[in-house]
């Protein structure tokens, strides 16, 4: 990106605006989650879904009226991928024979159709899944906090976990806003976002730590700014390659992983932003200082402030 020796771009100059944007986005997301809620997929709510392929594209209204006449209520009929493919979702989860019944009902009208896939999830399984997933997300955050806290310093731990929560909440907010289906694959995407965003945050944090130890002059402001400047090319390139792949996945991966790719695309963009503005910003706010990062001085050893060296086994590798 910027190989020339120009003055480091003043990233932190935008920090007030960025903070405002982040806070607004997070608050809006939480509000959306509270008001509209997530459109949970069947994995979580329980229910029955039937995917059918018609020989000729059917009128969805007709399909709906056929089902209503047959006595079903609380169902959704929509096209799935192609106009000959129809997805019927029912919230009812007590009856595990629903799928074949629906096929019978719909084919009784004389339409030629075949069952592509059907799914039935009991509501109890769905509830447990919701709990387990929430737990998995929380656990992931706690483990990250502990690891980074140990490996770097506690302030860095906070500064790496908060952006993760920030990213997850915003992605959830977007899903709530558009009422996209939130299913298991999207959950996997959320966890991948945690991994990815963390990756980004750690790289920036690592450089901040290194610069604090190396640069003996300069305010925290300058050091953080410089660190972001030094890593920005890498941040953009890695996000670029990941986004390129995700776009391929989004356009070619098919319906089943469409939302997965979408969640990740949003997550990568937000995650890249948050590793710069949320994480570094937090470090500023918490007033990270050189003293926080000093390698504990061993008595009588000179130059204990040396930057961290890669472990010795690496050089043998």
């Amino acid at each position, binding site marked *: 990106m910027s190989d020339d020796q120009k003055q480091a771009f003043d990233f932190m100059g935008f920090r007030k605006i960025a903070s405002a944007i982040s806070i607004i986005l997070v608050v809006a997301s939480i509000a959306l989650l509270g008001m509209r809620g997530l459109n949970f997929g069947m994995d979580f709510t329980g229910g029955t879904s039937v995917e059918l392929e018609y020989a000729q594209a059917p009128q969805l209204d007709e399909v709906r009226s056929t089902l209503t006449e047959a006595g079903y209520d609380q169902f959704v009929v929509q096209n799935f991928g192609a106009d000959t493919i129809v997805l019927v979702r029912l919230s009812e989860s007590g009856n595990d024979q629903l799928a074949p019944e629906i096929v019978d009902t719909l084919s009784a009208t004389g339409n030629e159709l075949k069952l592509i896939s059907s799914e039935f999830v009991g509501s109890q399984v769905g509830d447990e899944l919701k709990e387990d997933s929430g737990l998995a997300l929380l656990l992931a955050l706690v483990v990250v906090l502990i690891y980074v806290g140990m490996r770097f310093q506690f302030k860095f731990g906070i500064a790496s976990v908060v952006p993760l929560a920030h990213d997850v909440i915003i992605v959830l907010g977007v899903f709530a806003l558009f009422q996209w289906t939130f299913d298991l694959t999207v959950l996997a995407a959320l966890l991948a976002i945690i991994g990815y965003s963390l*990756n980004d945050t750690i790289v920036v944090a690592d450089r901040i730590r290194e610069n604090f130890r190396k640069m003996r002059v300069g305010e925290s402001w300058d050091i953080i700014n410089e660190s972001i400047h030094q890593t920005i090319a890498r941040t953009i390139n890695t996000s670029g390659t990941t986004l390129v*792949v*995700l776009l*391929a996945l989004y356009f070619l991966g098919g319906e089943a992983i469409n939302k997965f790719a979408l969640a990740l695309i949003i997550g990568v963009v937000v995650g890249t932003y948050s590793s710069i503005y949320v994480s570094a910003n937090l470090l500023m706010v918490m007033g990270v200082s050189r003293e926080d990062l000093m390698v504990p001085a061993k008595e009588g050893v000179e130059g204990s402030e040396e930057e961290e060296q890669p472990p010795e086994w690496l050089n043998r590798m």
Partner: protein
Amino acid sequence: MLNKYPLWKNLIILVAIVIGFIYALPNLFPDDYAVQITGARSSTEVNSNVLDRAIKALESDGIEVKSSTLEDRDALIRLTSSDDQLRARPAVQAALGRDYLVALNMAPSTPSWLKSMGAGPMKLGLDLRGGVHFLLEVDMDTAVGQRLEAVSGQIKRELREERIRYRGGDVQGTRDIVLSFRDEATRTEAFDLIKRQYNEFLLDQRTDGDELQIALTLSEAEVSAIRKYALEQNLTTIRNRVNELGVAEPLVQQQGSNRIIVELPGVQDTAQAKRVLGATANLEFRMEARQDAASSETEQFSFRDERQRTARLERDVIATGNNVANAQQAFDENGQPQVSITMDSVGGDLMNRATRNAIGRRMAVLFIEFRTETETKMVNGEPVESEKRVVEKGIISLATVQSALGSSFRITGLDSIPEAAELALLLRAGALAAPMYFVQERTIGPSLGQKNIDAGMMSVGLGFILVLLYMLVYYRGFGVVANIALTVNLMLLIACMSILSATLTLPGIAGIVLTVGMAVDANVLIFERIKEELKSGISPQLAINSGYSRAFVSIFDANITTLLVAVILFAMGSGPVKGFAVTLCIGILTSMFSGLMVSRSIVNMVYGGRRVEKLSIGGKLANV
């Protein structure tokens, strides 16, 4: 010397790449369409004679046979197309009859030299090959309740036998039995008896109003033992039944403490699968009819193994499989195989009453099967499949009663260990230990599976090429290095998954795609670091060296944290999330190897050990 890898280091990398190549290779050979023949019972042998009959039947139908193999317990016939495969199954089934199960299968076509090294392709998950997925839940409360009922009956019977009078006794709540007595003396007597025999209960003497009571409470350990038994028992039963379905490579697996996953690749008819899984195969114990018995009181049955052999049995049923608590294959004092049967209290009573006066007569164990048979009829030249429900009863054992039987007895006179083991299995499979119901079900059509594979492959391919281009344009010469490392990474990832025989699912493919995107991160970090070092004016050789070693700390921290998240995903997630986590975990490890070592090795080979003026790493400064 700077930037020179010693020979052994290069050799290790080379060996890793060669091994990776070999184990990733089988995935390039497409699977063959095949039909698999197995014996319907463990005693049925699949030999070359059977295979020849099957092949002849196929040839007479004009179905081309690619090759055939005979293994220990099954035979595999490979065919050339999916159409042939669909036609072949009914043809082979018709030729071989009901003693054999014919299933559709996909046979890996790994060349034998690869197979001899233990290499094989990745398994495809249900979402990629089509099939049915069920999640069944075992009703544990009922399992514990049934056990309590049985024990309470047993205790009351023993009290009667010991002439200890009790006023009442009932199961209370979910894990208590409460017995009440008239006076202190009988209660003490009963207490001693129960304490001797039922140490799985916590005993408590208490009074309720004017009643003196003994409360038996199942201990926590015993409750979990019952639950465990119920789950294992149901797993066995379900496995047994899945085998009856004739599905190649079915999966029956425990999930959590009370659920069972059943995956049946290739099965499309969920209704049939559910009927069989939920079916209640059962047993009946009946006495052999006396010679002079009226024919209205007897019934003729044939043996399950030998259709010609028959026996006349009484119409009265002594007990059923629902009364069998457990059955084990064992050996008698002469080392002959036998089956030890434990009946529950009701069954024990019934058995005792019936056999007390029938010593010397023979008792039969009758196996009752509810099956669905698919019949293929030719209607107007088109084969039409129809199903019908069949109840089939066959004698599995007819043995002389040597003494009055109680709640545990044994069946001897069995021919072989497998026969005894199978009888025990059938006896156990006769009834589920606890009721089960379906809590999740997923059907994936074969066309959808193929579509998913195609979509997945397309996106991996395109994503991969785009990343290669991106790196090439941005980093020039070093981009090539990163691209080689990325290719090695993809190869190693596939090799690792094949070696671990991990199952590839759609989310798994997504995981691979994501790994491809993120794997270059290590190299991007290193290259940016090298550029920076160059900018600060040090020589290219030094820049390479410090670029690699300084970037390491960041790469290590970033990957370890991501790995932690992936491991949590694997431990906590289920189904699709797990598949994704596996690929992500492996991908992180292989990408660290390829990003750090493989790329370093190449860079060293190109630039190491000589004077270098400039590096081909893209950007203005590097090319000065």
